[in-house]
């Protein structure tokens, strides 16, 4: 299943939020989305999820225009984990994950054992099966993020869109979430802030002021000149003597 953006643009009150974005998400690929605050990462994810219609260009799923597909059909293929999705309702973790089955249910197709199996599988996949009956409000930040991913997995999607899933998590939970995403084997677009973490993606797309300024494998994109231009930082590459992997150190350009 291929998700493509063809020259999409979005304007709000004459301000351009996104402009001329061309993007193809290959099957089973993890595409990282990086860029400074306000560069349009969340907006691009919303467009790719079909929640917002672009003013120009179009998003297609296997060649079909997203804005001409029923919302329910999109939700069976694309799942979005947004930022700051919170609730004050008193619901259990399992009930929250059950919401992921919404696009597969209607009056003629009520809740079934198959749906319950999907939910159980999703909970097990993110290692939360033991917390299924806990109240949502008792979960830690990392557990909530994993529960959101389980809800997305319960949609049984082929494409997963994640908006800064490691935000506000401690370092151990950040790594857990990233490992989980890497293991899922789904086509994934993931917005990230940490550039060292971004290096684990198959490809990276760099957004600046709503324009795609670079796209390609991490080692080509995370070059000193691009980082200086987009983020205003001077990057130095260090080699970890432990396993020979590359990591970066940043300093503001003075």
């Amino acid at each position, binding site marked *: 299943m291929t998700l493509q953006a063809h020259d999409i643009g979005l304007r709000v009150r004459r301000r351009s939020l996104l402009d001329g974005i061309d993007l193809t998400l290959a099957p089973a690929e993890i595409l990282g989305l990086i860029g400074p605050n306000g560069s349009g990462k969340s907006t691009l994810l919303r467009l790719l999820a079909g*929640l917002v219609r672009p003013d120009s260009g179009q998003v297609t799923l296997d060649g079909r225009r997203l804005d001409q597909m029923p919302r329910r059909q999109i939700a069976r293929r694309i799942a979005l984990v947004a930022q700051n999705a919170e609730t*004050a309702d008193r619901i259990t973790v399992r*009930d929250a994950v059950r919401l992921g089955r919404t696009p597969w249910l209607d009056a003629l197709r009520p809740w079934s054992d198959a749906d319950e199996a999907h939910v159980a599988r999703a909970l097990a996949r993110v290692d939360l099966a033991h917390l299924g009956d806990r109240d949502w409000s008792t979960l830690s930040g990392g557990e909530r993020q994993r529960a959101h991913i389980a809800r997305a997995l319960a949609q049984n999607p082929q494409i997963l869109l994640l908006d800064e899933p490691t935000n506000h998590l401690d370092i151990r939970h950040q790594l857990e979430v990233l490992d989980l995403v890497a293991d899922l084997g789904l086509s994934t677009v993931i917005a990230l802030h940490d550039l060292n973490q971004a290096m684990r993606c198959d490809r990276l797309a760099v957004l600046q002021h709503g324009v795609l300024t670079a796209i390609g494998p991490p080692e080509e994109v995370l070059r000193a000149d691009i980082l200086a231009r987009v983020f205003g930082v001077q990057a130095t590459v260090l080699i970890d003597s432990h396993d020979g992997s590359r990591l970066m150190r940043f300093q503001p350009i003075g």
Partner: protein
Amino acid sequence: MTADVGVHAARRLRAPPWLWVPLLIVAAPLLGAAMGETPIPLSTVWQALANQILGAGYALDPIDQGIIWSYRLPRALVAGACGAGLAISGLVLQTLLRNALADPYLLGISAGASTGAVLVVIAGLGGGLVPMSAGALLGALAAFGLVVGLARLSGGGTSARGAAQIVLAGIAGSQLFNALTSFIIARSANAEQARGIMFWLLGNLSGVRWEDVGLALTAVVIAVGTAFWHVRALDAFTFGTQSAASLGVPVGRVQAALVLATAAATAVMVSITGAIGFVGLVVPHAARFLVGSRHARLVPVTALIGMVFLIVADVVARILVPGQTLPIGVVTALIGAPAFAVILVRARCAP
């Protein structure tokens, strides 16, 4: 912990819902008709009903027969329909706006419906061709549009501050529409009309007759039916509107259908009984406390509790002060305002 106890109690109660739900719907209005300043035995109520519907020919005091059939029964039926309708409206608004304090009364929707109704009845809008409830519906929708629009403009949303914004916008809306209502009354009504209207505005079931029953029941069946049809969509709003959309819910269409159905219920209830406060606010919270947050159970339980609550409130209104009937809005406010305070405090404690 107390919440868990509530859930378990409800599970035991839930055993055969096909049995106790219809039983409650039939029994509550009958009990409401039996109780009053002069209590009438349930058997008499039953006989009066049999006389009227089946022509059973039981020998009854014609005064009892009249009180039950022409006065108390339609009153109890409208009270029940009104309670269910307002409670469902409150539940739907709370879910769609992600706001624990949303309620047709607090958000000014009832005030808007009052203005619309008064425009038709007193100012003669529509030249007698427009029914009062249609005017009330227009007023209710105008108020809802105004309040939600104002809340958006002032940065309302699902954040804590946004939750306050929509309640503040509701206060502004209520004040505006109440002022408009007073203005229309002062300008167009004679002294006698004004007195009647003022009493009606407080929320009052005194004038209820059989003609009102059909309209009230239709409105409540449509509102509860629409909510029940959309239980999964309502659940999907748990994590907000965007989350609902990404779960495949056609958000705009669902919101429009639900707001229209509940605004219509509110408008019809207001046109019959005046604005009754706090039912829509308090009842959904009581229902959530009993059966949790999933709408498949929440919608019917909210409707049932709302029905019973308003029938009981009406009985209390009739017997609390001997020789006098209080406006039912006074009773619901006396119960609802402290409950509102509790919800406010608990909302602050929640994360």
